[in-house]
């Protein structure tokens, strides 16, 4: 009974925060709503008796990914936008997106309804020690490949985001720095269409 109540509350918060994350017009707020969604997901993991996943979720997502995204929002903010980054949702795009989403949701709900799912947990939930042993025995190759992938992503991100001209490191005014960069257009120039 109490589990049912908890699940109802957690899933309501989950859907509400997810909706706010995709519909709010302020980008910083969208990222913060996403953080709420991810933290609520950690509660869902606890309800699923997976404390390891809940910890992972809180550390990696709400700790790492969220702050990274906030930095992304702040770094790509134009100086003209004083009161937050506003994002316009085109009504045209919404009109096209809604039927696609409705079809997808209908398909998913039908598929879940028609599939006989085992609805009772068959085995006791694994402890973190068991998960660790499984990672380092059965899934050892995937684990090592994953570390190579993370290294590649790190190197790739540094190469992509690095400034080409190292002599501009001293300038602090972003507009001055942007104007001095060879490939960039000055801020007032018309955009290519």
């Amino acid at each position, binding site marked *: 009974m109490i*589990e049912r109540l908890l*699940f109802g509350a957690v*899933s309501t918060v*989950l*859907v509400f925060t*997810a*909706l706010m*994350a*995709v*519909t709010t017009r302020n*980008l910083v707020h*969208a990222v913060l709503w*996403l953080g709420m*969604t991810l933290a609520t997901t950690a509660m*869902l993991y606890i309800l*699923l008796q*997976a404390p390891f*996943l809940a910890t*992972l979720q809180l550390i990696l997502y709400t700790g790492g*990914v969220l702050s*990274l*995204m906030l930095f*992304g929002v702040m770094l*790509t903010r*134009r100086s003209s936008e004083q009161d937050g980054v506003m*994002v316009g*949702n085109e009504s045209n*795009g919404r009109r*096209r*997106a809604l039927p*696609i*989403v409705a079809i*997808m*949701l209908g398909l*998913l*709900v039908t598929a*879940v309804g028609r599939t006989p*799912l085992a*609805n009772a*947990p*068959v085995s006791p*939930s*694994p402890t973190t020690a*068991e*998960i660790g042993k*499984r990672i380092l025995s*059965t*899934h050892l190759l*995937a684990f090592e490949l994953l570390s190579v*992938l*993370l290294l590649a*992503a790190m190197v*790739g*991100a540094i190469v992509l*985001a690095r400034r080409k001209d190292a002599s501009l490191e001293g300038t602090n005014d972003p507009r001055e720095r942007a104007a001095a960069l060879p490939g*960039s*257009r000055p*801020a007032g120039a018309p*955009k290519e*269409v």
Partner: protein
Amino acid sequence: MTLDAYVLIAGFMFCIGLYGVLTRRNAIGILVSVELMVNAANINLAAFAHFGRGIDGQVLVLFTTALTVAEVVVGLALVLLLFRRRKDILVDLANGLKG
């Protein structure tokens, strides 16, 4: 709680993320929506692990989480690059290669 409930919640979340990907014009907004979709998939994996055979599903969530972090890092680097080139990150305006 039953497995159906968890899978349905994950399905709802996936669809909300899909709606965000389709309607957002800002590249970071799209990244936020993609996070929602990945999160829905993770909930599914954890739910099937709980109601099924146990350990492997949780290991898979660990792997997908690491993949998502890598994806976000590279995605944000690309967004920064786009911003440096164009001074905005609206993806529908970045059509320089359009024929």
